[in-house]
């Protein structure tokens, strides 16, 4: 049953990821990406990461994708731009990278995760997923958490400065 669910999610994820790259219109690409985000969230649920599944839908589907759609509609593109002239080279490089990854997984499968699993602390199932992540986030990863807030602040300031008219233009 779990294998079936995994293959359902995996198939939809791969197909919609391909559609994101293959479709002509940016709006259709963004909508295919939306379907993919939902299925990645489903995959997270099967992996017992419920909090991340919700966050995935809220942040990716709710915020990031809406931002993309806003920009697509704001720019009002007339011409359709499709594939680059280096289509063959790009496809070839992608295939090479994927073959390399598969080779690494197949060759390294005998040692994949075995030596790490012994030293890792077992997951605490007495508490919820959200509670455990929150405790980890505010104890072990407190400093990266603060840095993440700084990154968001910098991104906010950068976005405002880049889009505001009259700041970057040279006065002449």
């Amino acid at each position: 049953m779990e294998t079936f669910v995994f293959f359902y999610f995996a198939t939809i994820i791969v197909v919609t990821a391909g559609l994101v790259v293959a479709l002509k219109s940016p709006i259709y690409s963004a909508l295919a990406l939306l379907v993919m985000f939902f299925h990645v969230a489903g995959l997270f649920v099967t992996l017992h990461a419920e909090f991340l599944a919700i966050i995935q839908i809220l942040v990716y589907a709710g915020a990031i994708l809406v931002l993309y759609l806003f920009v697509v509609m704001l720019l009002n593109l007339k011409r359709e731009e499709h594939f680059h002239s280096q289509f063959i080279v790009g496809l070839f490089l992608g295939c090479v990278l994927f073959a390399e990854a598969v080779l690494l997984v197949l060759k390294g499968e005998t040692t994949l995760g075995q030596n790490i699993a012994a030293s890792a602390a077992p997951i605490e199932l007495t508490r919820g997923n959200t509670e455990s992540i929150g405790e980890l986030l505010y104890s072990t990863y407190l400093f990266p958490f603060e840095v993440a807030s700084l990154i968001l602040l910098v991104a906010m300031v950068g976005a405002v400065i880049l889009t505001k008219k009259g700041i970057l233009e040279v006065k002449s």
Partner: protein
Amino acid sequence: MDVPVSYYVVLSGIVFSIGLVGVLIRRNIIIILLSVELMLNATNINFVAFSSYLGNLSGQVFVFFALTVAAAEVAVGLAIIIALYRHSESINIDDFRLLKW
């Protein structure tokens, strides 16, 4: 837990490769940013799969940070796209080759 972790790794490899191909072959900058999102999602799948299989929650915390970086990247990237569009009325990547020659 009868799905082996290597299945997740292969799935994530496929999605990452599709994202990489998308960055290389598309000319629309918006699609290129969407492909970067694909690659970030592929790493997220990997993180969560290993976190679940090793019984260690740190992987999920790292997905949280990757999400933060993705949000920041999208905000700045889309701002750059809007600035580029104001500058030259186009978001075709071939039109911006000032640094090339």
